[in-house]
């Protein structure tokens, strides 16, 4: 997985075509998940407020429309 991540980081150069294989996609998804959880850990108030607002919007769309 570390190799795939290293390859992904290298492939960020302009003109690089990525992802190529399902493993590339998995590496990219894992990287996004990691970055997302890191962002949530750094900004818990914003993240929780956003989640509550998203839940309210979803509930409004489902229950009230």
């Amino acid at each position, binding site marked *: 997985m570390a190799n795939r991540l290293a390859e992904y980081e290298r492939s960020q150069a302009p003109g690089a075509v990525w992802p190529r294989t399902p493993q590339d996609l998995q590496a990219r998804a894992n990287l996004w998940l990691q970055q*997302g*959880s890191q962002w*949530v*850990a750094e900004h*818990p108030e914003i*993240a*929780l407020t956003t*989640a*509550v*607002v*998203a*839940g*309210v*919007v*979803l*509930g*409004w769309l*489902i*229950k*009230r429309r």
Partner: protein
Amino acid sequence: MAPSLAQSPTPDIEADQIRQRMRAIRRDLGADVEDLVGHAERLMDWRYCVQRNPWVSMGIAAFVGYFMVPGRLVAFPTDDTALRKLADRIPVTVQPPPPEPKASLFGSLVSLGLNTAGRAALAFAGQQVGKFIGQQAAQFAPPQTEETTHGKSTR
């Protein structure tokens, strides 16, 4: 045979070791309690919980937001015209009650016979039980002699 305390070769050394161990335990206990309190305080901090389980916290928050929205209220019309229209739309059909099944002559005769037989069997069983109890009582009753009847004892 196990050696007694008095015969033990190094009782003072053992006592010193125990004292040292107890002293060390007492010393470590304070640090352990402080660690425990710090850990409990950290667990009570919601930021720490969010940092440890970010996606679970986000899901719980979204769930809470979803359930904060109340459901839609359904208002029924209560004015006369709306109720009359509603009543007109409902077809009113009076259905006759289902006819009760008629008992045939044979069936009633059989039930009468079973009733009578059941009562006769019950009466016969009661009679037999009474007779049996009477026999048992007569068998186990103490014999009534002249002495017991007059309240005198031979001894």
